[in-house]
């Protein structure tokens, strides 16, 4: 790795000062004069026909300015694919999950809006509901959407190689059923939106969106306006993690419609209870995994049948089910593979994308099952991983999986080496195995995640670098930092390429009226795509600066370089001038030049074939080996996870603080899904809809985390970068479950593994200590 001035340094985050001072403004922090507050009236039934809605009483309540129902949206629906646009902002004829929105109110304050909601009278005809996806696909189950009479919203059947022959020839074939939990993104900032539909017909919105340009297009479609009339001004975003803040949610459309009706700005802030009962969550999936191996523990084939609990609408489900199948051929060599998937409508809240999108389910199943087979064959699990791991290809050759996933670097082998040489794993035999009722265990897992997602839709991404005459720099992109640190990384790239000081870069947040279009923060794409655009825009600006310097010094531009805030002659570095002086010279040329650099990302879109399961959904892949140490109380089932070591190949870590922070955060969120988090649902009702009952880790639950960077310089990322955090999020649950097995001798195949499940399993196995 060549010596950079800014890249790879531990600079402070560009937004840190505003954030620690409480000056960073989030959507709910904005208000406008004359602003009204909105609330949504929600259905008490999970599945019911709407016979009639009477809003007259609500309308008469003093302080109420407008009431809307689903009919106000004139049949407009949205969704990920043209064929699955099945969701309307408010339910029209039917509700499909409990607390789905049926009407919305704008009033002078929140209390009045809430009271008005309670005065809206809706006549329902309750319908039988279906909540379990395996029940929902049975013949005769209640039909949730007329356009999918079998309740299957998405279905894939893929076949690669000769699976039947491979199983027949295998020394061992194992079948297991796994299930992943009903979990939610858990961001701390509830969705909020402030909208103004002004009388001249322009919509301006401040909304908590990690993909503001999705919302921009949704609003244009919903209100039948050209994009130029929609303006999303992006506040700071209080966490994203996919799903809700990628997509639009009911309240986002309601505020705009209510503003249109009242001619006043309207604000809506979800309550956390609304988030936990109605917002997008991860698909809970049932995975029937069948894995074959040779006597030496070499993978021969995998057949996975996956049933996704889709909830009431399709949302981004087609992509989820694609990724869930797509990921199985990584990070171990797999010659034969069959995938059958059904995403099923149920009368539950809508399932959609979440961090580690798609990969979390099948990677969990495959990783655990691989270890189960290692145990049966008496092969060391690390040795088995090494035998199957995909090697680091020569970048010129690349690697291609059986389903056509291509990449140029793979540091998996090095991550295995680093993680197993680390004392947490290497010294595991020296540790105490039992202390009173507490049994200790160490687990290992290996995984991958895709960086630079470039599937379907409008993936364009550009950047503008404006050199101000005082030598400071305005960096303008459409990219969103929802906490991951991308504003910082993009500013670092600009400073590096321009030769400017990092402190002189100011990052301009998204305003769809001015910033170049960008699809947003998901699929670990921002550093890769916006990073490339920024790199190119900075080069363009630098070229103009060098020309100006060349004129001033009467030399060719190629003879000059700029670094760390100074322009200098390459072969006579004493001849130099400050970046500020150069900016002045360049800007004051003639009548006043304007130095603008522009650039865009050219990775483009890869066609994914959803029906056959082929295609390449990203630019590159991260690889992770993670080890976990924990203690289990064999009497109470309580688990204390004390240590994580995460050896992670993120390419070149451009901002190590963010790469570590993302890995740490991703892994703790993954830990949580392994043992804490899960909605308790009964007939579509969420029983734990508060943070008191929906268990997320607190500071006292956080393990010690060590992140080891494995550096592969990926030619497809800016400065060699790949993805960070989704990998550690995917690797944490199987790693924890593996450690639990080490401690108890029991395999847990359903997440989350709660103390109750542990005690029950210990009792069944005759290991309960009491």
């Amino acid at each position: 790795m060549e010596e950079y001035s800014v890249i790879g340094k531990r600079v402070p985050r560009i937004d840190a000062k505003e954030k620690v001072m409480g000056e960073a403004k989030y959507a709910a922090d904005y208000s406008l004069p004359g602003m009204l507050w909105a609330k949504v009236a929600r259905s008490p039934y999970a599945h019911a026909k709407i016979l009639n809605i009477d809003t007259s009483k609500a309308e008469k309540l003093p302080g109420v300015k407008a009431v809307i129902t689903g009919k106000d949206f004139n049949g407009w629906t949205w969704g990920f694919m043209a064929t699955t646009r099945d969701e309307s902002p408010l339910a029209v004829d039917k509700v499909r999950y409990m607390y789905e929105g049926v009407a919305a109110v704008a009033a002078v304050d929140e209390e009045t809006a809430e009271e008005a909601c309670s005065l809206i009278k809706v006549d329902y005809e309750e319908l039988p509901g279906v909540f379990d996806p395996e029940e929902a696909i049975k013949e005769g189950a209640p039909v949730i959407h007329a356009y999918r009479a079998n309740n299957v919203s998405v279905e894939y059947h893929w076949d690669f190689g000769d699976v039947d022959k491979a199983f027949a020839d295998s020394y061992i074939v194992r079948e297991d059923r796994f299930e992943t939990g009903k979990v939610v993104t858990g961001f701390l900032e509830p969705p909020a939106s402030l909208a103004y539909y002004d009388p001249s017909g322009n919509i301006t919105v401040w909304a908590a969106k990690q993909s503001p340009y999705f919302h921009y297009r949704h609003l244009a479609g919903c209100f039948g306006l050209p994009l130029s009339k929609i303006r999303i001004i992006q506040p700071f975003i209080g966490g994203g993690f996919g799903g809700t803040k990628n997509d639009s949610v009911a309240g986002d459309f309601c505020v705009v419609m209510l503003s249109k009706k009242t001619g006043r700005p309207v604000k809506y802030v979800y309550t956390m209870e609304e988030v936990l009962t109605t917002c997008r969550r991860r698909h809970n999936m049932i995975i029937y995994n069948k894995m074959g191996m040779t006597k030496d523990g070499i993978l021969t084939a995998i057949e996975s049948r996956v049933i996704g609990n889709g909830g009431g609408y399709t949302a981004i489900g087609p992509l989820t089910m694609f990724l869930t199948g797509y990921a199985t051929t990584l990070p171990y060599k797999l010659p034969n593979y069959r995938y059958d998937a059904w995403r099923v409508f149920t009368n539950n809240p809508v399932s959609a994308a979440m961090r580690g999108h798609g990969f979390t389910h099948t990677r969990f199943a495959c990783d655990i099952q691989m270890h189960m087979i290692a145990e049966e064959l008496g092969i060391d699990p690390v040795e088995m991983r090494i035998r199957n791991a995909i090697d680091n290809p020569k970048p010129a050759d690349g690697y291609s999986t059986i389903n056509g996933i291509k990449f140029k670097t793979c540091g998996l082998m090095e991550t295995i080496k680093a993680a197993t040489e680390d004392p947490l794993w290497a010294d595991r035999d020296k540790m105490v195995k039992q202390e009173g009722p507490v049994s200790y265990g160490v687990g290992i897992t290996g995984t991958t995640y895709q960086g630079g997602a470039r599937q379907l839709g409008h993936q364009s991404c550009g950047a503008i670098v404006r050199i101000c005459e005082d030598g400071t720099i305005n960096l303008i992109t459409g990219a969103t930092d929802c906490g991951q640190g991308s504003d910082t990384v993009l500013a670092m790239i600009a400073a590096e390429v321009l030769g400017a000081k990092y402190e002189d870069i100011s990052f301009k947040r998204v305003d769809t009226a001015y910033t170049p279009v960008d699809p947003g923060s998901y699929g670990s794409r921002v550093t890769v795509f916006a990073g490339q655009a920024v790199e190119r825009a900075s080069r363009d600006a630098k070229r103009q600066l060098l020309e100006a310097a060349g004129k001033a010094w009467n030399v060719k531009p190629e003879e000059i370089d700029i670094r760390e805030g100074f322009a200098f002659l390459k072969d006579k570095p004493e001849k130099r001038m400050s970046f500020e002086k150069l900016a002045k010279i360049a800007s004051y040329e003639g009548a006043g030049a304007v130095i603008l650099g522009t650039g865009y990302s050219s990775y483009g879109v890869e066609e994914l074939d959803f029906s056959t399961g082929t295609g390449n959904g990203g630019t590159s892949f991260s690889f992770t080996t993670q080890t976990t140490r924990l203690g289990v109380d064999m009497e109470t089932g309580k688990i204390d996870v004390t240590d994580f070591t995460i050896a992670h190949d993120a390419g070149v870590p451009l901002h190590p603080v963010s790469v570590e922070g993302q890995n740490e955060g991703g892994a703790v969120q993954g830990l949580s899904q392994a043992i804490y988090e899960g909605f308790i649902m009964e007939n579509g009702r969420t029983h734990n809809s508060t943070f008191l009952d929906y268990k997320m880790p607190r500071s006292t639950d956080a393990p010690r985390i060590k992140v080891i960077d494995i550096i592969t310089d990926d030619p497809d990322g800016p400065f060699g970068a790949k993805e960070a955090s989704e990998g550690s999020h995917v690797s944490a649950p199987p790693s924890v479950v593996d450690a639990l097995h080490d401690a108890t001798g029991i395999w847990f195949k359903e997440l989350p593994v709660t103390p109750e499940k542990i005690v029950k399993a210990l009792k069944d196995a005759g290991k309960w200590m009491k």
Partner: protein
Amino acid sequence: MNLHCRVNEKEYDLEIKPHMTLLDLLREELGLTGAKEGCGEGECGACTVIMDGKAVNACIVLAAEAEGKEILTIEGLAREGTLHPIQEAFVEIGGLQCGFCTPGMVLSTKVLLDDNPNPTEEEIKKGLEGNFCRCTGYTKIIESVKVAADKVRG
């Protein structure tokens, strides 16, 4: 009803509704939006402010309870643009990502360090137990608090 209190060393005489929360008073009436509303029910700590030296969840404290009290919000911590050493530590170490939990974390750290300038790692974790963070996995926050403690002790 009438309310008299001091917020960030400024005196206020206000007319409030009896059921108004301290968080709504700060955010809606005084325009101090540094304290955030996450859960609104005392579980997440995003709304943490300091009342007479104690960290409280402003979403479950009535504004009326602030009568005669001294409130410190995140906006009152830096002095004329100079960061408090705790804020400096969070910036240096990177103890923040989306920043939504950050005002609460910083103020809880202040109360912790005012009580115990030399906390162990366990005491730090205990001191921040009431403040959720979904982004960082807490590692860098705990590190920031250690560095902050060094700075505060001087």
